[in-house]
């Protein structure tokens, strides 16, 4: 258990680093909200009042320590814009983001594994080339282009006009599917190239290993080899990739998708916090993501042990 303890300590140091950097960038040098909160014809005195209320006049270390304390106690304060508690904002928006991103995330990875397997099992043949070529093509299309194109093709009279253009008026499973489909397809499309390529490389590497060759020599069927050996032994890199992309996909991915489709999830809340300078919200999002990321690192360390006893 000693390595685990070390990992925890490292994690703690990471959290300190992440919070310090994000605090420096997003709070200390970050956007100033004072001037969106004052009225017309404000006096210098009113401006000073607001600055004081927002805590902008406090020294660096006091503000940073307050930030750490708020993360540690999960008492994240209230939004400077609406007065809503940050905890409530998170509870309101995170489920929306999960509902939005999870289907695309899972499908994107499953499809990636499937295509990767398909290509790997035909390594060097036309099917492999086709899949590899398509994934390079997919990797070469900008996320923004995909989103715009899918919206035009699926949700407007210029295309099929099947789904709502934007928004999130979800009241049941049917309406959920209506709103989630276009973002999901865009997400799958944009991640599929990367996923396929990655999984293909993993499977090819694994297929080349001695024990697979041995199995093959003993006449095991192709399918058996893929299922029993290649896929099973590739679990470590697969799980690692999936785990590590969760927090980043959820925040970075939803930032763009949600602000484009106007979906009230954590990405849009973050984007609005950036553009309005709502620091309590920003601080919470960055801090919690960092904590989640570090937690995942520690967790995956434990998972490796379960999946692959060779890891010491």
């Amino acid at each position, binding site marked *: 258990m000693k390595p685990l303890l070390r990992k925890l300590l*490292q994690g703690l*140091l*990471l959290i300190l*680093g*992440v919070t310090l*950097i*994000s605090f*420096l*960038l*997003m709070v200390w*040098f*970050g*956007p100033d909200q004072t001037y969106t909160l004052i009225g017309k014809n404000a006096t210098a005195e009113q401006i000073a009042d607001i600055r004081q209320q927002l805590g902008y006049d406090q020294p660096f270390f006091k503000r940073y320590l307050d930030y750490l304390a708020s993360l540690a106690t999960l008492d994240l304060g209230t939004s400077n814009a609406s007065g809503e508690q940050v905890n409530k904002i998170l509870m309101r928006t995170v489920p929306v983001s999960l509902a939005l991103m999870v289907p695309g995330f899972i499908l994107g990875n499953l499809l990636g594994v499937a295509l990767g397997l398909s290509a790997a099992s035909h390594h060097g043949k036309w099917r492999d080339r086709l899949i590899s*070529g398509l994934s*390079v*093509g997919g*990797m*070469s*299309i*900008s*996320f*923004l*282009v995909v989103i*715009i*194109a899918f*919206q*035009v093709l699926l949700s*407007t009279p*210029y295309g099929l006009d099947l789904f709502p*253009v934007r928004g999130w008026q979800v009241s049941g499973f049917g309406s959920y599917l209506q709103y989630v489909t276009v973002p999901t397809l865009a997400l799958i499309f944009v991640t599929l190239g990367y996923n396929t390529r990655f999984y293909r*490389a*993993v499977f*090819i*590497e694994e297929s*080349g290993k001695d024990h697979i060759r041995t199995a093959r020599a003993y006449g095991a069927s192709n399918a058996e080899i893929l299922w029993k050996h290649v896929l099973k032994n590739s679990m470590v890199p697969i799980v690692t990739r999936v785990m590590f992309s969760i*927090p*980043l996909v959820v*925040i*970075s991915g939803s*930032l*763009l998708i949600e*602000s*484009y489709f106007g979906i009230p999830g954590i990405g849009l809340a*973050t*984007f609005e916090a*950036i553009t309005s300078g709502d620091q309590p919200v920003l601080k919470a*999002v*960055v801090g919690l*993501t*960092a904590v989640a*990321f*570090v937690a995942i690192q520690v967790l995956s360390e434990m998972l490796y042990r379960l999946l692959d006893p060779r890891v010491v």
Partner: protein
Amino acid sequence: MSGRTDILGKLKNDRAGLAGFLIVSLFFLLALGVWLGWLGQGWSDAGGGRWEAPGAEHWFGTNVLGQDIFQRAVYSVRTAFEIGLVVALFSTLVGAVLGALAGWYSGSWVDGTVMWMKGVLDSIPFYLFVAAVAFALQGQPWAMHLAMIATFWTTTGRLVRAEVMKIKSMDYVRSARSIGLHDSLILARHVLPNTSHILLVQATIAFVAAIKTEVILSFLGLGVQDGVSWGLMLAESTQEVLAGHFANFVAASGMLFLLLIGFNLLADALQDALDPRQAAL
């Protein structure tokens, strides 16, 4: 150098890689043309009408201001290369230096610090980090570049570190150390040159990532501030496509796609040629 001809020889036999190389070269020529003032100089002139259709005078039509979309798309090649080159060069350089130091002094506090920095930078959601840097350096035209360099070096750093740890234990390095050569000399003369295959491939990958990131950042209003880029054109097009004006969208996304696929093919070919083992992973 024999290594160089080797690469070229291998590239010649890789048709996809060759195509990539040709595409990238073509775009580089375009960028050069813009730099030299031969191409795209009229990108900001508002001489045409509002949303003119493509024609002899305006090959890709005009935008809402009457600016020539073809010229803007071509001028954006220069913007893309400026961003791509700067970010690729510096992120690779930083990655090489920090990775080499960490690898050479692996296990020491230097290694620990570099790995900690990498861990920290990898833990902040990318767009949030870049946005934050853009804010902190408000008005600086280099804010976007800096943000990308600060995050892109980590992959190069990790790979170089691993490679250096391997090289360190090799005989010629040991003997160099045993005759008392200074660490920095060994690193510069014998170790870093042997990581060049990693650096070249990572630089192409960073180039691609930089261009793609620029598009998103410019769309969010955090990217290119003065001038024109495919990202700005795409941002413009988001207001136009649903009204049926597709020229901006098609021109920017088409050229962007071409350049990116060129670079991706080139990166693949380079990886195959230089580092077959890594290529598989």
